[in-house]
């Protein structure tokens, strides 16, 4: 019998094929959807300024059709390269190129014969990413200690309500912030007691808290808030604080450094959690508890205490996220105003591979999808706004398929730890 050639030890060639075809498909879609539906000679204008900066950047004016053709060429080129040589090592890069080309083409097409403030949209992206990022950070911090927390949605709702009410009553937004943190800590502690002390299924407990949170906030809202808006539900919002010097940087300044206190807190939290998690004893112990609680236990680490602490800190972060909805943006509470952001945050956490920085970057992705759909409604794109509004949810589902890089959760995630 003739001996066949042994298969190569690297990843199957199927992946090469799939990514290559995806890229080609992106090129084809850009052509079919956008090039075909545009006229020659049109121009798209992208605003690059928002407010005052050190100097103003001229608007970016692109001829629509040539720009679209360029994008088609880019994706087709990479697709062909991938099919022929497998030039792109990871599927992630291929997906990134394909989606960048597609989104850019969509923007250019949408802005044809019109003007579109790109920097404004990116500023909006950051703003919209913040509650998602805070939810994701809450997820990271508790799941690294192996406690799944899907109660984030409920925590954010409760914190949103308590913060605006306390801020309105005291007239102090700072009090509102502190109350939001306390609310988050309290509800997270409740979740922790249920799953650690009473060994309730972690997802069931999370769902119960979400139901309770939705019910309780709606109850309070319709019993008290709706009839006493000025007395209880009108706090005003946190001021936008431009960071001196930094906010003067063109493009980056308005995108990153003209926000409210909560946004800057989020930036700091991302960096802080990254350092804490990977460079300190607390982080080492947390990760050990999440991966192999029994090993941690045999080395004298208190598994339960670690989990309580992490879940409660996570709750405070989610509480901050809740405050963002009310005192951070609109200054009043509406029923179910979190609209699934807590769950999207969990998807961001998974996509970010349970790391603070990854979670933040993927939150930006969701924030972008959200911000994009809002801008598109203004641009009178001939697509029903309801379909654009589905974008963040659809992106979440695509991300969860793990087609773009599968992440492995902490090994003990979701498992009850039984101390003997």
């Amino acid at each position, binding site marked *: 019998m003739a001996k066949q050639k042994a298969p190569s030890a690297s990843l199957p060639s199927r992946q090469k094929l799939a990514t290559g075809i995806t890229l080609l498909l992106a090129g084809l879609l850009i052509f079919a959807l956008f090039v075909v539906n545009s006229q020659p000679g049109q121009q798209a204008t992208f605003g690059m300024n928002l407010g005052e900066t050190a100097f103003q950047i001229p608007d970016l004016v692109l001829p629509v059709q040539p720009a679209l053709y360029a994008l088609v060429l880019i994706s087709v080129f990479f697709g062909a390269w991938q099919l022929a040589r497998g030039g792109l090592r990871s599927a992630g890069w291929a997906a990134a190129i394909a989606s960048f080309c597609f989104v850019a083409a969509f923007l250019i097409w949408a802005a044809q014969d019109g003007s579109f403030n790109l920097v404004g949209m990116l500023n909006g992206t950051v703003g919209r990413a913040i509650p998602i990022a805070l939810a994701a950070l809450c997820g990271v911090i508790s799941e690294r200690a192996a406690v799944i927390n899907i109660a984030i949605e409920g925590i954010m709702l409760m914190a949103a309500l308590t913060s605006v009410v306390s801020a309105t009553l005291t007239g102090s937004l700072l009090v509102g912030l502190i109350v939001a943190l306390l609310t988050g800590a309290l509800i997270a502690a409740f979740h922790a007691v*249920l799953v650690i002390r009473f060994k309730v299924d972690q997802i069931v407990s999370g*769902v119960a808290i979400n139901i309770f949170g939705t019910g309780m906030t709606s109850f309070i809202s319709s019993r008290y808030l709706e009839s006493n808006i000025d007395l209880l539900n009108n706090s005003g919002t946190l001021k936008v604080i431009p960071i001196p010097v930094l906010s003067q940087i063109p493009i980056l300044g308005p995108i990153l450094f003209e926000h409210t206190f909560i946004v800057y807190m989020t930036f700091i939290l991302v960096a802080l959690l990254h350092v804490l998690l990977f460079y300190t004893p607390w982080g080492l112990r947390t990760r050990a508890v999440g991966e192999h609680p029994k090993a941690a236990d045999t080395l004298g680490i208190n598994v339960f205490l670690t989990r309580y602490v992490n879940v409660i800190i996570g709750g405070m972060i989610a509480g901050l996220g809740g405050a963002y909805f009310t005192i951070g943006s609109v200054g009043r509470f509406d029923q179910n105003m979190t609209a699934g952001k807590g769950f999207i945050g969990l998807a961001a956490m998974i996509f970010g591979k349970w790391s603070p920085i990854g979670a933040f970057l993927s939150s930006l992705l969701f924030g972008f999808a959200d911000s994009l759909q809002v801008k598109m409604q203004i641009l009178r794109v001939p697509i029903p706004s309801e379909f654009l509004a589905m974008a963040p949810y659809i992106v979440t589902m695509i991300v969860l398929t793990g087609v773009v890089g599968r992440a492995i959760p902490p090994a003990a995630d979701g498992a009850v730890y039984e101390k003997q």
Partner: protein
Amino acid sequence: MAAKKSAKKPGVTPRAAGSDATVAAKAPSAAAESRGGGSFWANNLLMPALAVFTGLVVGGVIIALANDTAIAAWGNFFRNPFFAVKASWDAVIQAYGALFAGALGKPADVIAGIQLYYSTGDATAFYRAIYPFTESLVLSTPYIFTGLSVAVGFRCGLFNIGAEGQFFMGALGAAFVGYSVVGLPAYIHLPLALIAGALAGAIWGAIPGFLKARFGAHEVVNTIMMNWIAFRLSDWLLNGPMKSGGFRPVTPNVEVTAEIPRFFPDPLRFNWGFVLALLAAVFVYWLLFKTTVGFEVRAVGANPDAAKYSGMSVLRNFVLVMTISGALAGLAGAVQVLGVDHWVGQGFSAGYGFDSIALALLGKSHPFGVVLAALLFGILRGGATSMQSLARIPIHIISVIQGMVIIFVAAPAIIRWIYRLRIGEADRTVLTRGWGK
């Protein structure tokens, strides 16, 4: 893969792995316990009942706190402590009194109604007397379907939080067939509309099921995303393609031939949908416990690894169960639109998703348990409206109570601790399995 990994390491204790002496010695007592009638009833009837009771107590506390008179009385606690307690107690009694009276009606009125009917042939008084109770049954009907939907998922280790979206899609599907198809006889039109509803729900459930089976994407997040997509889609449909001629974003009324027949004249809305729901429960019971399909579903739910090793297809069962689950939730929507409302508007399905989880947990994922739980919830909801109007307690208190009930059902340890009960713990049912594979 990660789930496997985790199960291997911390899960199996060295003793459980193979110490003969331990397990052998434990066997008789454990067997006696699981066989023993007392423990069975305690775990499946007493504990849920206590969970509901405790949930109502917590709700009562909140009602008392929300009562202005009671709060004012507590302000004067030191001058008149008795009055503070009494005022709170009165507030709770008034609220729950309104709740149950609004849900069940008054038996005396029913008897009087029957007597009146026999003496004069006039049934109006009778109808008025049974109105509250039949209305509770009307409200129970979609609960039975959605509760079954979630329960079927639990039996296969899947957590369907998407009943709300599936319900909505089912309602829209049924409504579409109901109003757009004209001229069919009822015996064809009605089943067709029901099937359309079930199908729409099934598709909405099958998508997360497929994503779970194929990619290991967690169904909890995905079913929630499908909910939001359903809401946005319905916004578009109700404002566009499916909008009736009028001003409001609602569908046209369904044709009379697509309506589920009612038992009594208007305004009583009690209809054959309730019977359909009971039949669905019997069907699910048969499917789960008397067929090879159910055997596989339960095997996959209890231990997907062992099911796979013994030749069952875990992935196929995931898709199948999510399809059945979605179809049941879709039927809930279909029955609601065809039997009760006859048209669909925005927020049509609000709350059913979360309620159905409470139902399935309370009913211990058993079809008949779900029916009992659904009747209870129907009564709570039925009375909530009159509680709102009579006692000024917002309907949302029911969600608060439900949240607490779920917690108490899922954490029997709390109930045992509160009531100092000594009941052996039942076999822990695995409900969920962390993220993805």
